[in-house]
């Protein structure tokens, strides 16, 4: 390494040092500490008491609410993530048309995702109101059952939250839009010359070239959906009712940590969630080669 190179290396590390320091002190450090706490009984005031894997044993064998919250969370993830992806793609395609007023439409469709979660949760409480809510009224006008209890029903509370999650689809929609605009126009031109219908263009050009964006949004969506918290906390008053049907994993973790002050137990829960999310992300990465198509891969 000559002098110039060494200098460059030092400058490089100096430039990324805010991130390195921030990550080590504020993220990685606390993570390690929380792993230690997950092996202890800890209530924040008395020194942690080492109990080995007892917290994990209790979670897996002795706590029905742990499994219930895991079930609720998976239910939510399995439906809300693909649904959000599909909605995001469809909206992005619609907003990729060449119409004069398009900037206006893009703004309108993006707006909901910058409304703070707590505010939109309150809005949706009204939309889902069984007697006066927009949703039941609309269903009634269409001649469908209009007495669904939505958030107050054990069966409908999770679907209601999934519907509500589509409200925040604007973020991924913008990324899809960028992905769509990155597809070279000449591919479509060539396809049209060859006589491809718009359906075929979508199937053989748009979709394959959009897969990297879909992949990105899928992983980010999974990570986000597993950690759903604010909306259920607001809607159910922090309880996860009715009948624990909206007791999501993070909500149960919060209750253990800040209502019952079982910090060790909550730390163990956090680590289990970390492993789950990590596993899902790794599986995605492993299989991404089979369906994700990067333009750079086009050879010769």
């Amino acid at each position, binding site marked *: 390494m000559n002098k110039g190179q060494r200098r460059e290396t030092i400058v490089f590390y100096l430039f990324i040092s805010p991130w390195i320091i921030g990550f080590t002190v504020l993220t990685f450090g606390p993570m390690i500490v929380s792993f230690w706490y997950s092996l202890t009984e800890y209530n924040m*005031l*008395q020194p942690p*008491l080492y109990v080995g894997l007892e917290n994990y044993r209790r979670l897996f064998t*002795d706590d*029905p609410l742990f499994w219930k919250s895991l079930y609720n969370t998976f239910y939510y993830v399995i439906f809300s993530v693909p649904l959000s992806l599909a909605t995001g793609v469809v909206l992005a395609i619609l907003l990729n048309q060449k119409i004069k007023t398009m900037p206006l439409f893009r703004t309108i469709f993006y707006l909901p995702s910058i409304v703070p979660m707590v505010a939109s949760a309150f809005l949706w409480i009204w939309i889902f109101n*069984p*007697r006066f809510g927009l949703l039941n009224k609309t269903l009634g006008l269409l001649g469908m059952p209009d007495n669904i209890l939505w958030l107050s029903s054990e069966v409908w509370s999770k679907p209601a939250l999934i519907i509500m999650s589509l409200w925040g689809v604007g973020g991924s929609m913008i990324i899809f839009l960028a992905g769509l605009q990155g597809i070279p126009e000449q591919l479509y031109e060539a396809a049209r010359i060859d006589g491809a219908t718009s359906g075929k263009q979508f199937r053989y050009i748009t979709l394959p070239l959009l897969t990297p964006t879909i992949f990105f949004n899928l992983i980010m969506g999974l990570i986000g959906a597993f950690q759903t918290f604010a909306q259920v906390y607001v809607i159910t008053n922090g309880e996860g009712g009715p*009948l624990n049907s909206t007791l999501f994993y993070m909500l149960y973790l919060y209750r253990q940590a800040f209502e019952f002050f079982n910090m060790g137990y909550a730390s163990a829960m956090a680590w289990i969630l970390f492993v789950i999310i990590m596993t899902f992300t790794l599986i995605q990465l492993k299989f991404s080669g089979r369906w994700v198509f990067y333009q750079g891969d086009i050879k010769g």
Partner: protein
Amino acid sequence: MLKKRFFASFLLLILLLSLTLNVAAKTKISFWHNWSGEGVKAIDSIVNQFEKVYPDIDVEVILTTKIEQKLLVSIAGGAAPDVVLFDRYKTGQFAARGALTELDKFIENSSIKSEDFFNAAWGETIYRGKIYSIPYYVDNRALLYNKKLFEEAGLDPNDPPETWDELIEYSKKLTKYDDEGRITQVGFVPIWDWASLVHYIWQSGGTVFNDDMTKVVFNNEIGVNALQWIVDFIDMCGGVDELISFSSGFGAQINNPFYIGQVAMQSNGPWIYRDIERYAPGFLKNDLRIAPLPKNTEHATIAGGFSLIIPKGAPEPEAAWKFIQYLVQKESQIEWAFASGTIPALKAAAYSDQIMRDDFWEAFVKNMEYGKYRPVHPAFPEVESYIYQAVDKAVYHKMTSKEALDWAAERAQVILDQHNLKIINN
């Protein structure tokens, strides 16, 4: 020359004086509370009076929310406040974790006597034989009912339901349906308005734990019968779904379902006074009536309220104790309670003419007689969350009352054992 020397010594004197004044600097204490509105003004006024009586103590009043979480963090971080107005019900949870200062020694050398306070409040300050807080104000729940609806239904408003059977009887007569069978007015709903199964167990003479808090007993015959009574009551009204649907149409403030006659009877506490006074003064004056909650075998109500605590590690516990003593004097108690719309924890203050100013307050002060407190045990909040779940399972008919309570009791026993083991180990 002489003049100069005189001047110099004069300056020196001033310097010395100001130094000694600095040495005798005021003791600063911080006081956390979570009140708003009239309560804040009363606290500020009482603090001013206190500072006049104790010129060497300065009280910094800090208004905050989510006090429990913040207190925990501040104690852990070594920055605890001196006095906190604290939910008395959490005393056991915090005392068990060593978060609170024992007050027994302070009390011995003071004029504070347990018998001057309401039993239900004082009892809740004691965890494993030691006192951890001084009650500041209390509340309880009573049966509030609408005189006009009673008369419409042919019931005598001067003869409110006294027993559970009568409550069902009255509720039937006070519940109305439209042509499609949907509820338009409900008599009473046993799971609304702060009512928990614990209430009904007490009213049947039962308890949540056994006497030494080693066994969960809420799933015994008394508990099961109490829960079954709730389930039958709800089914009689038309089921939990119909009640949810009905209540989703409820308004707030001037459209509160109780003020406008959609709900004829409810279990509620004195904190509703301000709202009723503001949004439905006519209803308050003419139609609101108050009676003790009906009994199965005995009258009982949860008595909650707030206490004053000194956190562990408070910088100035002596000054804090002076402040607490001042806050629970009769005059300060009356001033606070009158302004904030609460019941003083000090009996002499509660029974004063100023607090028993009208029928409403007289009824609630007298109702303290039936007050009971929740078990002072660190496991209780979590145990209670399982009791709530059991009630849910039973009223939704996911389980029978017995199954639901057995399920909850099994979990609760595990939690109780864990805490008790920890207590022994400490």
